[in-house]
């Protein structure tokens, strides 16, 4: 059992858990916002302060926009769930379905143990076969399996960037829902409600303004994966194992 065998279900599980947390956080945000609105609407004090209506309405509309944006964004995330799972599966398949069989062939290509009388074959054809044919195929086979490993590792990084992002997102939205927006539920006065609305909207805006810092970890993982892949693409033939970007031809 390789480490990938155990890493694969763990990654899928981590991703699904991150999606679940993001969903629950945004659900709490919506619930608390609705409860907050209910609190304001059922508070008899608002009828005693008609001059506050405009401000209250405006504040709630601003906050509703934020809640709406986060709800829609989260909904969009879920469209990526199945594709990201496919990516994790692919990262595993590059190892099991390519790296393993290819390195298995590579280990047998130049092995003459099974061909007991191999040493009996001498002469020009034999020399050409071992020095040109086997050697070049061996070089190409040896260069191929690390590629599968590299691609697998790269895809894993991409998946981890997603998991990190979703977890951070869930934590931040959860914070906003359970503190700033929750304050609106318990606001006992109109002034208190106005303050809670203002604070909540501010916290939402701040999350967006500081997204680069807040989600720094996921951006970093993503950037690493990006440069890793650029290197992989640009150096794909640098080993000389694949002359003219192709599999070496011994027989033409």
């Amino acid at each position, binding site marked *: 059992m390789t480490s990938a065998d155990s890493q694969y279900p763990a990654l899928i599980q981590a991703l699904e858990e991150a999606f679940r947390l993001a969903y629950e956080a945004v659900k709490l945000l919506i619930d608390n916002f609705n409860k907050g609105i209910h609190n304001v609407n059922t508070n008899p004090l608002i009828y005693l302060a008609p001059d506050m209506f405009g401000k209250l309405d405006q504040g709630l509309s601003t906050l509703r926009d934020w809640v709406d944006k986060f709800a829609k964004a989260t909904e969009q995330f879920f469209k990526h769930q199945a594709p990201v799972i496919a990516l994790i599966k692919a990262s595993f398949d590059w190892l099991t379905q390519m790296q393993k069989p290819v390195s298995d062939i590579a280990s047998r290509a130049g092995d003459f143990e099974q061909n007991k009388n191999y040493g009996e074959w001498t002469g020009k054809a034999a020399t050409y076969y071992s020095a040109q044919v086997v050697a070049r195929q061996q070089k190409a086979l040896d260069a191929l399996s690390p590629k599968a490993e590299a*691609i697998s590792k790269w895809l894993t990084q991409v998946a981890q960037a997603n998991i990190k992002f979703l977890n951070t997102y869930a934590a931040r939205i959860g914070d906003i829902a359970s503190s700033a927006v929750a304050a609106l539920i318990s606001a006992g006065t109109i002034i208190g409600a106005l303050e809670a609305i203002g604070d909540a909207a501010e916290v939402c805006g701040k999350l967006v303004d500081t997204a680069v810092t807040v989600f720094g970890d996921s951006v970093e993982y993503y950037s690493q994966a990006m440069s890793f892949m650029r290197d992989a693409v640009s150096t794909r033939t640098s080993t000389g194992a694949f002359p003219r970007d192709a599999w070496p031809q011994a027989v033409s």
Partner: protein
Amino acid sequence: MTGFQVVTAVVRKEAAKWDEFANEIGPVRDAIASMKLEPLAFFVLDAITFATIPLKLPAPPEELARSYEDMRSFVERLLGEAQAEFTEIAGALVKIAETYEQAEAVIELDLEQVY
């Protein structure tokens, strides 16, 4: 067993090895062919959500998707070429074995003529 028979057996055994490799690498190519990934797979944020949460990624997920497809299709092509090459090597080895057999037969025939 005369010398030429040992050698042709050796060469034929090598040919069988490459045929085996060709058979084994075929499914690898098929597997890679099925590992295409859509751009949605590369990041949960897309054009729509980037407007809400500006992450300033160094490159859009579409570029990651393109890089992946570049590598995937390159490897798929290499594997296809490898399979064809292995089959050709096996074929060439069989031809070598046949040539040895014919040459040996000619020599034996000559010897018969001599004696």
